[in-house]
Structures are given as structure tokens and as C-alpha cells.
């Protein structure tokens, strides 16, 4: 699958498409790989309004008015990887911390008090500091408070995913960051994450390990975003073909400033970000799309319900920070700092339905 995705991405020449191609695609009701390529092209950028009209219709068809709310919790920010775009990278001089199990439970209680039932647990990649057993204990305690537990941690072996699933994890987010192998090696200078293929095959190992769903994503701005999203979409498409029961979701983060940042990014503008989200929506309308707190309030408020159906709220991207004072520095700067209650009110105002619980662990 890796070869197929990379080969197709390599051959993807988005400049060859014309407005006539886009018009032809817009008259369709279902969109295949070739249509996806056209929808992501610069030619389609002038058709954002008709794309949005179709996108919203599909969002309503598949998700109704529902917007799932969740919050991330950073358990630790120790990391052995040197990823040039990340604030947690091992050479960055930041305050490192790791919550102990009592501190974790305090955080859970504070989050659960807000009504949230869906949590995403994150760590950096440091098997010495945040080993599998540490994550497993955090998960076991989380099952007392939450119905949906997702992880966004380092890539694991299949048996390790299986173990965490048995402990209570249902969803795994693993972002390839970029599907351009050369660029991948440039920005992942050292550490286990440097192994492109091991990371690429994480979703498959997670599903084989019994997980209910997996998330895909590229960090927009690291490389050519059109090619990266094309690859992201194809990656998910092929995984869904092999594992048709899997729940698929996308995140579309853009690079955000972080402490001690040296400029590593190629700008991706909001207009392009929306195009990317719409192209994914039309290609795989059953997949959920998460809108990050990295984005501005205005952008988030407008894309939720239009293309995005998962939204984080009450976010802290430092270690801890929901209950006690934050223990370690942040991974990146967030843009939308609104509380859960504020997001709840916003959704109601927009005629959308905040969903706190949408899963039964089976």
C-alpha cells in the first residue's frame, strides 16, 4: 500500500487540471480518486462556494447536525525525536514533565466535570519516560470517566495496540506529517519516528490490534500540501477498502508557532485549508474531520457543521493544565482558547447539536 500511495502521489500533477475539469466533477454525485485529484488542484480553488454547498449537504447527510466534542490531555512531553517543526523535539530546551497517575486522575476529574466523555491522550515519544505500561495505566483509569478514549502517541507494534485496546482505547491518531519521503527524513532528523514505513503502517497495525477507528493527517506547510493531502486521502481510502468497518477521521493541522521556533514552514492559507477539507469531504464523505484549536475562532466557527464534525474544546496543549497548573511547556500555540461551555453555546447558536457521547466500548 505504501508503494502504491507514494507512486500515485509522485505522479499527481495538480497543475494539469483546468476549470473545465472542475466543472465536470462538480456535476457528479460521487467522487473517485481522479475527482479527488481535481478537487485538490489550484483550478478548483476558484470554485470554493459550489464545493462548500456540496460539502455541507454531504456533512448533513452523513452526520446530521451532530458535532462531537472532545478534549486532548497531554500526559508527558518527553521526546526522543528530533522533529524540526515540533515544540516537544528532544533538542528544544523546554520545561519537560510527566504526570503521575494521581495527577492524571485529577485531570480526568476536572475534564469529566465539564461533561466531556471523549478524551484524547497524548505523549511525546520516549519509551523510557512514557512506556507502554504508563500509557496503559492512564487508559485504565480513564475508563472510569470517559466512554471514548483515543491516543495520539508514538507508533506501536500490533500486539501493543491490541494491549491498549484491551485496556480501553478505541481510536488511534497517527499523522504521517508529510508523505514526501525525502522531506520526511529532512524534518525528522533523528529518533524512532524517522522510520517512514513503520509510521505509515501504524493505522493498519492499530486496526489489526482491534481498534475501532484511526485518524490520518499531514502537517500542512511541511511540504507540498496538495500532494500531502492527496496522499493522506488515498492512504485512508485504501485502508478503508481493506478494513471496511473501520471508522476513519482526518485532521488537517497547519504548522503553528512554538517555543524556540526556527521557521520551517511553507504557508498554507485559510482558503487553501478550506479547499483541502472540502476535497477530503467530497472524496470520503463518511469520514469525520476534526477542526483544531490551532485555527482561529472565526475559521472554526464557520467550518464546523460545514465540513468539520469533531471539535476540541477546553484545550490545553501543555502537560496537564485542566485541573492543576500546567506542569510542562506547550507543544505549539493554540489560537482558539474557548471553554467547553462557550463552544457548546456556539454550536447551539448555529443550530448544531453538541454530542458528548457517541461510543460504547465493546
Amino acid at each position, binding site marked *: 500500500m505504501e508503494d502504491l500511495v507514494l507512486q500515485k502521489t509522485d505522479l499527481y500533477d495538480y497543475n494539469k487540471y483546468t476549470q473545465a475539469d472542475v466543472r465536470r466533477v462538480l456535476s457528479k454525485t460521487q467522487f473517485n480518486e481522479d475527482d479527488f485529484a481535481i478537487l485538490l488542484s489550484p483550478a478548483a480553488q476558484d470554485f470554493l462556494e459550489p464545493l462548500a454547498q456540496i460539502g455541507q449537504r454531504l456533512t*448533513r*447527510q452523513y452526520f446530521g447536525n451532530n458535532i462531537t466534542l472532545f478534549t486532548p490531555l497531554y500526559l508527558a512531553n518527553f521526546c526522543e525525536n528530533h522533529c524540526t517543526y515540533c515544540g516537544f523535539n528532544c533538542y528544544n530546551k523546554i520545561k519537560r514533565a510527566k504526570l503521575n497517575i494521581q495527577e492524571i486522575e485529577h485531570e480526568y476529574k476536572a475534564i469529566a466535570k465539564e*461533561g466531556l466523555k471523549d478524551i484524547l491522550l497524548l505523549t511525546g515519544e520516549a519509551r523510557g519516560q512514557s512506556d507502554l505500561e504508563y500509557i496503559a495505566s492512564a487508559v485504565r483509569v480513564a475508563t472510569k470517566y470517559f466512554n471514548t478514549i483515543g491516543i495520539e502517541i508514538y507508533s506501536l507494534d500490533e500486539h501493543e495496540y491490541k494491549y491498549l485496546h484491551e485496556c480501553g482505547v478505541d481510536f488511534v491518531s497517527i499523522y504521517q506529517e508529510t508523505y514526501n519521503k525525502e522531506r520526511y527524513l529532512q524534518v525528522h532528523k533523528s529518533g524512532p519516528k524517522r522510520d517512514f514505513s513503520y509510521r505509515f503502517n501504524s493505522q493498519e497495525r492499530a486496526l489489526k490490534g482491534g481498534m475501532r477507528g484511526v485518524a490520518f493527517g499531514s502537517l500542512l506547510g511541511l511540504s507540498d500540501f496538495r500532494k500531502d493531502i492527496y496522499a493522506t486521502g488515498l492512504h485512508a481510502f485504501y485502508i478503508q477498502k481493506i478494513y471496511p468497518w473501520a471508522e476513519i477521521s482526518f485532521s488537517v493541522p497547519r504548522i503553528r508557532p512554538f517555543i524556540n521556533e526556527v521557521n520551517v514552514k511553507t504557508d498554507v492559507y485559510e482558503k487553501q485549508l478550506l479547499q483541502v477539507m472540502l476535497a477530503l469531504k467530497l472524496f*470520503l464523505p463518511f469520514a469525520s474531520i476534526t477542526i483544531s484549536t490551532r485555527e482561529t475562532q472565526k475559521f472554526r466557527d464557520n467550518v464546523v457543521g460545514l465540513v468539520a464534525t469533531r471539535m476540541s474544546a477546553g484545550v490545553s496543549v501543555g502537560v496537564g493544565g485542566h485541573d492543576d497548573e500546567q506542569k510542562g511547556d506547550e507543544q505549539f500555540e493554540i489560537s482558539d482558547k474557548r471553554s467547553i461551555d462557550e463552544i457548546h453555546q456556539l454550536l447551539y447558536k448555529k443550530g448544531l*447539536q453538541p454530542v458528548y457521547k*457517541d461510543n*460504547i466500548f*465493546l
Partner: protein
Amino acid sequence: MDDKLVIGGHAFTSRFILGSGKFSLDKTPVVIKEAGVEMATLALRRANVGGEENILDYIPKGVTLLPNTSGARTADEAVRIAKLAREIGCGDFVKVEVIRDTKYLLPDNMETIKATQQLANEGFVVMPYMYPDLNVARDLVNAGAAAIMPLGAPIGSNKGLRTRDFIQILVDEIDLPIIVDAGIGRPSQALEAMEMGVAAIMANTAIATANDVAKMARAFKLAVEAGRLAYLAGLGRVLDFEAEASSPLTGFLDN
């Protein structure tokens, strides 16, 4: 005439079942009222007892709850969800949904038969959601189903009765209520299905995605009632051709 829909020994006057999963919860009571429904489905995965935005808090008392097993990928998972529903007080009705395809959300008929059998044995009133296949419907009857719920088109598609001919076969051959469950996008399609002799209609997306959900709920109520009346009245003659042929092919018999 006392025309009741009877499912598992329970009689209902309304032949419209509301799916509650896709619209804002605060609209649920008014939609239920306008649609005149006596039964509403709810996804147990959404039930958030004691928590925020719990669907169970929005369904008025007196409406029969039809929890569905959405999220189940196997018969075993469906059985577990149904038991959880019973535990939290949703009653004995269950709509079995076993889906292991996130793209089209098409039901797995084989697993659905297994789940129906197990749940019927445990005293549930089982209403399985299925792809309209006569052999499967017969197996579901034998497994103890209380009604059969074939899809008209993929869930949420609002495409109408794409499986019309196969649903007609179920109506003609199966002695349980046939309830069209998915794909009904317009009141006219609901009416068409009811005219065919379908026992009831379930809809969700069609109402949830309307501009005025309360008005659309009422429109569905009226369409379902009209379709039922038309079925009971017996449809009149519909000619396939504009008129009778002027040069009859059997005229030679008279010469």
C-alpha cells in the same frame, strides 16, 4: 375500522417511526408531536445517562423507545448493546443494526439473523434492519423477529425506494409488519411505500435536514396516513397504455 400496527403484541395507531439521531435534541419533542409518532429510535451509543445532551431526556414519556444497536459490527456486539439498553431502562424493544461497512452503512444480513435469534430468545421485541432479501427475511421470521425493516436506499441518502421491487416481495410473502427503514427522503416516497402495503415507515435524515423540521414532520405524518388509506381503499385501475387498441388483435375471432 380499527387499523392498528401490531409489533410483538403491542398495538400502535401511528405508522410512522421517528429516527432521532440526526437533528438537534431540543427539537425532538416538537418533531415527535407534529409527526404524531408513538415510537422513536435512539442510538444507545448516544445515550448519556446523567450527562450532557442525553437523548433520553428529550423523548417524551409515553413514546415507545426503540433503541438501536448502532456501532455493532457483529451479532455479539449487537446483543451486548441491546442488553445495555435494557439495563438503562429502554424497555424490551430493540432495532438490530449490524454494520461492518462505514462507507455505505449497509447491514450485514448474516450477523443480523444471529443477533435476532439470540435477542428473541432473551425476550426482546426484535426489529431487524436488513437489506431486502426474501430468504433472509424468512430466516429472520424463524429467528423470532417481530417486524422486518428493509432499507429503501442507503441510510441518509434520501434517495427513496430504490429497492422497491424487493420490498414488494417482502410485503407479499412475509406475514410480519414490513417497515421501510432507510432512504426515504420525501413524504411522497413514504406515501408510495405505504400504498404498496408496507406497514410503517421510519425516517430521520429526511426530517433532520429539512429547513423546517416541525413542518416536515407533519408532512410525513400526513403522507403516511394517506398512503395507508390508499392501500386500504385498494388502488384503482392504472392503464399502462393511453387507450385500448383500435385494431384489436383478437378481432378475427368475431369474423
